């Protein structure tokens, strides 16, 4: 945790730290959506026919208003009309496009609903609701909505003729195979600035000074480590900050035998609930300085702090807890 940011004079600045959520999902597809994406891999666009006769593109399995199952699959054209649009003057990295473009809702010929996609023109003056566009397909396709690279304005009369609607583009090498076990890979990567709050900031800052601070409930006098915003038992707050010792007693423990992702300690190692002297609740930390087979409930342990130059407002200022010599 880095210390920065402003706060009222006299009060220590709250801590802040960067935090990134980076999760990749591989989503199976199924249903009419799979038919649609498999069609895109072949250079075709398919919709589903609703009970009222409308052709829905992209297809759905059920009419969202009536709940009725949709019927046959219907092939539609890969050209159509822009029904709404907006302009992206500065593409973001995740757009993977090197020039400005439009997001648009496009009603393909033969469809009664619109497809969300991209239109490339030179500038927003080239965009208009009602304009005709056609799909520009990637040569290599995998069953993704991005198999259509973009939509392009339909050429004006006198220019080279467009393909007739509904005709698949020429299959490029590797482009015609039917995808197996179709899946959509979603990469979710979001950046945050984490703020642990004023109460926890004080606790973490104390750790950076080789101190452990607890919080005492002003009503029931229980001492919590780390301190809480309010007493979990009676709701009273704020708590009074009180120092607690860096020695305590093992309340419970487990031994980790398998490597844990993101954990640098080599297994086997022990992880214990430790109740510090002066505290009423335990917290979890690593054990060290003894064979894991020697760990037992009731054992007295003490904090082993990292070297002074490595002290920081983090739990890791305590390297581990080690047995107190008898």
């Amino acid at each position, binding site marked *: 945790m880095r210390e920065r940011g402003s*706060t009222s004079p006299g009060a220590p600045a*709250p*801590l802040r730290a960067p*935090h990134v*959520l980076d999760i990749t*999902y591989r*989503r199976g*597809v199924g249903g009419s*959506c799979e038919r*649609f994406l498999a069609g895109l891999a072949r250079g075709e666009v398919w919709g589903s026919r609703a009970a009222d006769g409308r052709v*829905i593109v*992209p297809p759905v399995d059920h009419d*969202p*208003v009536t709940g009725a199952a949709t019927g046959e699959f219907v092939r539609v054209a890969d050209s159509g009309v822009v*029904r*709404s*649009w*907006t*302009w*992206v*003057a500065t593409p*973001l990295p*995740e*757009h*993977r496009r090197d020039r400005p473009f439009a*997001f*648009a*809702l496009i*009603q393909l010929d033969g469809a009664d*609903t*619109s*497809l*969300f*996609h*991209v239109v490339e023109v030179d500038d*927003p003056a080239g965009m208009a*609701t009602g304009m005709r566009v056609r799909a520009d397909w990637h040569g290599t396709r995998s069953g993704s*909505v*991005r198999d259509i690279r973009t939509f392009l304005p339909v050429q004006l009369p006198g220019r080279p003729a467009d393909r007739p609607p509904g005709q698949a583009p020429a299959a490029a090498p590797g482009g015609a195979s039917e995808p197996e076990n179709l899946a*959509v890979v*979603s990469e979710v990567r*979001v*950046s*945050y*600035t*984490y*703020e*642990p*709050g*004023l*109460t*926890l*900031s004080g606790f973490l800052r104390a750790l950076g000074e080789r101190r452990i601070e607890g919080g005492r409930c002003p009503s029931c006098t229980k001492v919590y480590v780390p301190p*809480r*915003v*309010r007493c*979990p*038992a009676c*709701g009273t*707050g704020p708590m009074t900050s009180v120092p607690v010792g860096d020695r305590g007693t093992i309340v419970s423990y487990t031994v980790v035998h398998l490597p844990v992702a993101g954990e640098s300690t080599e297994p086997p190692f022990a992880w214990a609930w430790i109740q510090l002297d002066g505290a009423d609740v335990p917290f979890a930390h690593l054990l060290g300085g003894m064979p894991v087979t020697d760990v037992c409930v009731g054992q007295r342990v003490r904090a082993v702090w990292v070297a002074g130059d490595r002290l920081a407002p983090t739990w890791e200022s305590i390297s581990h807890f080690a047995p107190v010599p008898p």
Partner: protein
Amino acid sequence: MTVEHRIAVVGFASRILHASDGSSDAELLAPVVDEALAASGLDRAGIGVVCTASSELGSGIVGSVMEVYDVLPCWPPVTHTHLEGEGAFALYEAWVRLLAGEADAALVCAYSRPLARDLSQVLALQLDPYLVAPLAPRSYHVAALQARALLDSGRYAERDLAAVVSARRTGLTPGAVLAQPYVAPPLREPDCSTTECAGAAALVLAVDPPASGAAGQPAWIAGIDHRVETSALGMRDLTRSVSTEAASAGLGLRGSVIDVLEVHAPYSHQELIVVDAIGARRVGALNPSGGVLPADPLGVSGLIRIGAAASAVSRDGAHRAVGHATNGPCLQQNLLCVLESHR
């Protein structure tokens, strides 16, 4: 649905921070819970149902609700449910639980902090992961498609959007709005709500007779209706809000008189769409709280609209006030809550 049961809003409090003061979720929420409970005249022991809402993807902290338990009246154990989404939807659940006779009073809370570097990226994660998200639109791109469709319908022009902005954002004339560059045409930056703020809201519901005994004039809930539309953007008529129309019809609001209407419209054009969809014959005051364009804390704004509508009844003498809450792209979900001075 409308009901004859007598459940009222008896306490409400909210706060919005435009710049972080370093508070945690619990620190942000604690004074709001205290204030709402104090206004209700109830103490923590009187609360039998707690419903909370937040967005873990918005804050990036998985299981973040654990931290706020300490400030909630959850001990000794009461029914507590937490939802990822808009606080107004938690209100709906609390209301239903009281209707079902689970308890005599409920506390509803919502809180959020703008810890994500760019909330528009988080909101885009609500979009269809197969067909839309791979193209990586941000929330304002999708909203702009709706705004364009509304303008193309001929019902409104850009100057109407600018008039909404001018009414909600102090010191900004319509001309000054129109002079600003587009963020995603036809939307300009002031057309889009300011989401870089922290917010918390708490609302206390009580069943009669406790409601009558609580401090202040209770705002009786005449009905709540919550509707959702398809996630397939291209299947919807984006110029209308059919879910709001259905909710309004279900509550008997179409063609009625509403003294105070609080609309949750994260984009200027959405205020026009929602007001049209409610279809009241006359609205006495629209968004006297100021609306959400100046400050739109994720998942809290809708509950604040309902709290503001309740305050209009309990403090300002309105006979009938309506709070609106939305969630999802292009007004995908809409909830209306009708509050009345007479039960």
